[in-house]
């Protein structure tokens, strides 16, 4: 049971990093990234490929940290000045192109069979690293969100023409947001690979992007602590489905699929009744007396 709790904590921390990363992009900046799983997958595959070539673990980790934001820039460039709808389609497409390439070119990383990755020797160590990464990601997101940078991101979210008439380049802010948040997701992917010990295309489906989106919408777009709680709720629901399957006697794959339906239901209910999330973005009140 303790082992399971530690494993659950590890997953919650890793997916919280993903939620924080999407929160910077969508919650603060309004970037609709439907390919959030892509930087995560790049990180995981970087770790896997590094291990395949007998390189030390940190080479794969650095490769993941660097490759994910570079991929982000490559994806955002064609999106350029085009509208948010295209950004959603381009990111969705990019994520799928990467996954399908890994699936269909076995020479890179084993195709559908995937490859094994050196597992972290100790579960407690894995949990510790994941929590540490989550804390760092949270601190970075807080520093961005609460400062002048985050203020400008929210202006771009609300009205990018306004940002431009104030002399700011919305594209430059989007680029920097993409670099930071994709690097975060890339590192989360590296860690995920070493925790699970196995990397295959089935781990990086559109439904995984969907999970991160549900976490952000549930927790509260624009609020870092909110999206962490959102991710925690969803991951705990997810990992507890196996107990639910045992207890109810239903087949476990049916329960697993029902889980997706429940996520969809959560998304719909949130949009209808609580669009700002469980923990809405707070109003920043500053004291102006005596000025």
């Amino acid at each position: 049971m303790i082992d399971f709790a530690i494993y659950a904590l590890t997953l919650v921390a890793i997916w919280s990093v993903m939620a924080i990363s999407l929160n910077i992009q969508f919650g603060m900046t309004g970037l609709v990234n439907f390919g959030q799983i892509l930087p995560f997958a790049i990180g995981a595959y970087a770790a896997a490929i590094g291990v395949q070539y007998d390189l030390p673990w940190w080479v794969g980790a650095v490769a993941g940290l660097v490759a994910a934001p570079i991929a982000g820039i490559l994806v955002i460039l064609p999106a350029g000045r085009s509208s948010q709808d295209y950004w959603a389609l381009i990111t969705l497409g990019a994520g799928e192109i990467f996954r399908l390439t890994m699936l269909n070119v076995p020479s890179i990383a084993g195709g559908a069979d995937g490859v094994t990755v050196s597992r972290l020797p100790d579960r407690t160590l894995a949990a510790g690293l994941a929590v540490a990464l989550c804390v760092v990601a949270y601190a970075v997101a807080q520093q961005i969100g609460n400062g002048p940078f985050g203020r400008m991101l929210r202006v771009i979210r609300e009205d990018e023409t306004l940002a431009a008439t104030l002399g700011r380049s919305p594209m430059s802010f989007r680029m920097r947001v993409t670099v930071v948040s994709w690097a975060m997701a890339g590192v989360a992917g590296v860690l995920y690979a070493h925790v699970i010990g196995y990397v295959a295309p089935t781990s990086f489906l559109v439904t995984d992007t969907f999970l991160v989106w549900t976490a952000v919408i549930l927790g509260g777009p624009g609020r870092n602590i909110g999206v962490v709680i959102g991710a925690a709720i969803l991951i705990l629901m997810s990992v507890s489905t196996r107990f639910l399957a045992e207890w109810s006697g239903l087949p476990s794959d049916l329960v697993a699929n029902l889980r997706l339906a429940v996520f969809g239901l959560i998304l719909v209910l949130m949009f209808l009744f609580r669009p700002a999330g469980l923990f809405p973005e707070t109003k920043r009140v500053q004291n102006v007396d005596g000025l």
Partner: protein
Amino acid sequence: MLTVSDVSIAFGGFQALRGVSMVARPGSIVGLVGPNGSGKSTLLNIVSGIYRPDAGKVRLNDKPLPLGRIEAVAARGIGRTFQVPRLAQRLTVLQNMLVGARDQPGERLFDLFLRPGRVAAMEADALARSVAILKRLGLVEKANDYAGNLSGGQQKLLTMGVLLMSDPQVLLLDEPAAGVNPVLIEQQVEFLRSLRDEGRAIVLIEHNMEMISNVCDVVYVLDAGAVIAEGTPAEIRDNAEVIQSYLGQPA
């Protein structure tokens, strides 16, 4: 000095502006009047870098403006407001003001993380300037309200305040008085005069002829994309062509 020379632009087959020239000197208020669709807002859109004209030049202090690039034009010291006020609705009045300040170290990731002292100093300075401007506009009690919760007139005042935070040489104001109650208009007129006295050039689109006569030094009348008259407000009032095209019935 802002100089617009022989600017033309067409959208599809529609010639929105044909050879329009205009001058706005520092310390003066220039009025743009004309019927709806005469090209007033299009002219402001060109000067502020939203559209690139088919022909003609716009210069600020004898240097050409990078037309077609909004952020580059804004960075040169040209600020504008819109007919429908553009504000970050889900930020507070004060935050909207702070966003107006230029060259913020806190908007660079390096400084944000590694030079907190610099960021804090800039923030304190911007906060003091914001509060001073909000006081001038009579909006200081609303500092911590969401911008989206202000009345339409207050939003228009706030957009001017945000603009001022960037300390622009030229202000392009698109119908600042439309839909604003008379008391606030009075406040705006005072405000515009004080901005002019600070040596800024102001270009003002307005249908409120009383306001135009009150504050403008020069008025340009546009009709069907061309300037049909220019002069002092008094000269314009007596111009027969203007009366026919804009003010309606012959006097």
